[in-house]
């Protein structure tokens, strides 16, 4: 048997004192797709950058018989490596057209414009569905098209080692499917080794070998089937935990010791939970105390009719109708650029409304004056959990308490209670930048609910957070909804999170293409095995 095309041996990457990835090893054969799955900060990008020869590392990497230990030693291999960094459209230039991009990338790679190159270029354009758009500037492409263009630009020099860092995150389901198809074709035709990281567990099915990352280590590896077989014995229908060494999430209970409950077919997420249990980590269930205020909550919290937002000639939100009831979690789903954040910002008054009518908490919103006294009844968690990074967790919370004019005698015990219930009490004196992402997420939520709002808006609060923290966060929202009876509007680009919502609204390019309960939506597509697939069908049907 021939040796593996790529061998990574005990690679460690450090930034100052923090270890980004520790002693990671992996192997890949020609034509294989190697998957890296894990949360932000788990070490995927650091490993990929080390392999691409653009970051310093310790350990050894062997590609096609050539060993390298530093970016400098990797230099001779660079013509054979293609790297697509994280972030939509990061390698593109807004003002260059699709065609100019391909010419530019051919020029910097010094490719000869011969017959073979031209036909390969045509084929790539064809595969990406970009052939009709060669004259369009990259800045005017949708997120999905940008990623496809980035990918074919990376493929243009026929790399033997293709490294893609989260190419599909935030991309619409249809474009994601197409991206995977391009990859599948290329690796089969060219025998390329492809390393791909992703935030979506569901994409594991597309990969030949999977590596699961958790806080700087690879915790499991193998084919999807083999990995699932390893945890099948621990996955049950959601029942309360009878003992320790057990976690109950929204839709599963994982227990190391056999329990008296029906088994349930696990997903790859189970691996993270089982691994945590095997390490002896305790994940206490989340409890939420009732709210102190006895303010009545109107049953119809928000009603939007034909809400529209334009940026120049671009319509970000096109006549969107939506209703939000109290005691409801409404999921606003869509790819990046579908108009989710814009919609939330219109509701909050951060963007002026260009058309349509909005009623918030029974009050028609026409001016800033109408919003003023509503502010104390609304909670908002912004994208990336932005809070004051120069102040400790405690100082931040005290600041918000004072902004909402909570008397100190009420604010102090409430801050303490939230810190304990939401599990960030040990971090009260830390700066937000020192917190793990999952803790930061719950601390941001605490800052948003400190004044006990009646409606909560959350903008992509689960993005990049690891599986366990994400499941805990959804449980927390569930408890808030049940105990407080408030309304929650949450945006996400993880289609699979639809299962946690009472109702979902799906946006596509600024238009609403679905508004229903997840159960009804699933029922409409009986052949779909998951929300992902159901939404993919919806996406294909509703052509805009």
């Amino acid at each position, binding site marked *: 048997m021939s040796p593996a095309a790529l061998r990574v041996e005990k690679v460690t990457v450090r930034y100052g004192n923090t270890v980004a990835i520790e002693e990671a090893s992996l192997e890949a054969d020609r034509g294989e797709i190697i998957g890296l799955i894990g949360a932000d900060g788990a070490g995927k990008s650091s490993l990929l950058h080390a392999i691409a020869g653009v970051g310093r590392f310790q350990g050894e990497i062997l590609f096609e018989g050539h060993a390298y230990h530093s970016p400098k030693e990797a230099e001779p291999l660079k013509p054979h490596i293609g790297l697509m960094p994280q972030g939509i459209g990061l390698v593109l230039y807004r003002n260059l057209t699709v065609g100019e991009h391909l010419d530019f990338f051919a020029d910097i790679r010094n490719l000869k414009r011969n017959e073979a190159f031209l036909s390969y270029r045509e084929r790539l354009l064809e595969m990406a569905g970009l052939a009709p758009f060669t004259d369009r500037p990259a800045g005017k492409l949708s997120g999905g098209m940008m990623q496809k263009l980035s990918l074919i630009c990376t493929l243009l020099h026929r790399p033997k080692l293709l490294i893609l860092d989260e190419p599909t995150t935030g991309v619409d389901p249809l474009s994601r499917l197409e991206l995977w198809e391009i990859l599948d074709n290329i690796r089969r035709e060219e025998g390329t080794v492809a390393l791909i990281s992703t935030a979506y567990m569901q994409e594991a099915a597309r990969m030949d070998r999977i590596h699961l990352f958790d806080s700087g280590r690879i915790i499991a590896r193998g084919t999807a089937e083999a990995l699932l077989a390893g945890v099948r014995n621990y996955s049950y229908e959601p029942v309360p935990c009878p003992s320790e060494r057990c976690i109950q999430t929204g839709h599963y209970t994982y227990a190391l010791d056999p329990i008296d409950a029906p088994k349930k077919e696990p997903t790859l997420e189970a691996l993270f939970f089982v691994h945590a249990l095997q390490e002896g980590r305790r994940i206490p269930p989340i409890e939420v105390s009732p709210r102190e205020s006895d303010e009545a909550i109107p049953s119809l919290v928000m009603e939007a009719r034909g809400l529209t937002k334009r940026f120049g000639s671009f319509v970000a939100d096109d006549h969107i109708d939506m209703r939000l009831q109290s005691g409801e979690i409404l999921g606003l789903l869509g790819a990046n650029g579908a108009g989710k954040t814009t919609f939330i910002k219109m509701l909050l008054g951060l963007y002026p409304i260009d058309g349509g009518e909005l009623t918030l908490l029974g009050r028609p919103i026409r001016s800033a004056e109408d919003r*003023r*006294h509503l*502010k104390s009844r*609304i909670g908002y968690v912004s994208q990336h959990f*932005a809070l004051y*990074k120069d*102040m400790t967790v405690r100082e931040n919370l005290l*600041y918000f308490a*004072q902004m909402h004019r909570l008397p100190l005698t009420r604010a102090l015990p409430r801050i303490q209670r939230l810190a304990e219930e939401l599990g960030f009490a040990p971090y009260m004196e830390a700066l937000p930048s020192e917190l793990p992402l999952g803790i930061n997420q719950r601390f941001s939520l605490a800052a948003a609910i400190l004044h006990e709002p009646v409606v909560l808006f959350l903008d992509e609060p689960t993005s990049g957070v690891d599986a366990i923290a994400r499941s805990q966060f959804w449980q927390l929202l569930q408890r808030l909804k049940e105990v407080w009876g408030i309304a929650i509007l949450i945006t996400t680009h993880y289609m699979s999170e639809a299962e946690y919502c009472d109702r979902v609204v799906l946006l596509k390019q600024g238009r609403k293409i679905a508004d229903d309960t997840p159960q009804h939506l699933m029922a409409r597509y009986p052949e779909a095995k998951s929300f992902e697939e159901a939404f993919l069908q919806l996406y294909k049907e509703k052509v805009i």
Partner: protein
Amino acid sequence: MNRTFLALVTKEIIAFFRSWGLVAVVLYSFTLDIYIAGKGIEIQAKNVSVGYVDRTAGALSGKILARLHAPEFKTPVRFPSRKALYNAIRNRKIMVGLIFDTDFSREFYRGGPARIDLLLDAITASQSFQALNYLQNIVLDFSRTQVHVKLKIHKLFNQNARTSWFMSLAELLSITTLLGVILTAAVFVREKENGTWDIMLLMPIDPRITILAKSLSQVLILMGGIFLATGLILFGTFDLPINGSLAAFFLLSFFYAFTSAGIGLFVAAVSRSMLQVAQMAILIMMPMIFLSGAWTPIHAMHPLLQKLSLLSPLRYYIEGSESIFFRGTPWGDLWPYFAGVILLGGMLYYYGFRKIGKLF
């Protein structure tokens, strides 16, 4: 309202002290920068290098050269020829060159005009002209003049004509302007950069309170800097006299700090990043400082610029502060400066306030 106002001010001051980069810049500006400006910008001739070519017997030229001594001049260096001297000046080894030709002493004793050729590196204009001034005085002593007039000089307010006094004070006032703009703008723009801007807007607080509290917090930091610089550098290092009321100076500074905060509000309204703040601040500040008389006396400016300088609040601040420190002007006679700062400053602050208020 009082509590939220206080919370807003406290938050900004905590944030300031936690960002060590900003603290370092402010500390540097209010101490070392003013020290360097006071010490380093030397307009008086000092350590001027002199070279000479002497083709005379040397008696008279020697007497003249002996008068060129420290601290104004270095010991004169002899050169063999005019060309060698010229080259030394070209190569910046020598700043002033004297050439005594063969007929110099002969002409001198005959009573006719004797000629010394003087080569001057005029790139550092003020220094070289100061040197020229000295030389002329020395030569004048040797000339037999018919006029019997002697000047008795009384230097008022700055008896030793120390440039450090004037320069350090002017630098403090300019720094106050620059930092006032940058600090105030930073408070708002950092919120934009960190993504907390939206959260700030969603607080149930009157935007006017937010803006006022945020700018006041920076005015307080600025005042701290002015206290520090006055005590440590102006009085502590340069021994500035204080002939008027120190309280008047701090009060004038307080009003002026609001003026620069007002410009900062405007800058914050139109900038999206700290880089833009820095660019905008320099763009606005430079003409303001040029027109203020900090670097050139106003009476030496073009008449049009003199008129324009009436619009620079910094002009009133500088003239007012000089009057307080050096002239010892009493409170009652300071009103034009206070009026200038408060009126122009009030207008600027109001404009900045309105401009950033539109973003809320």
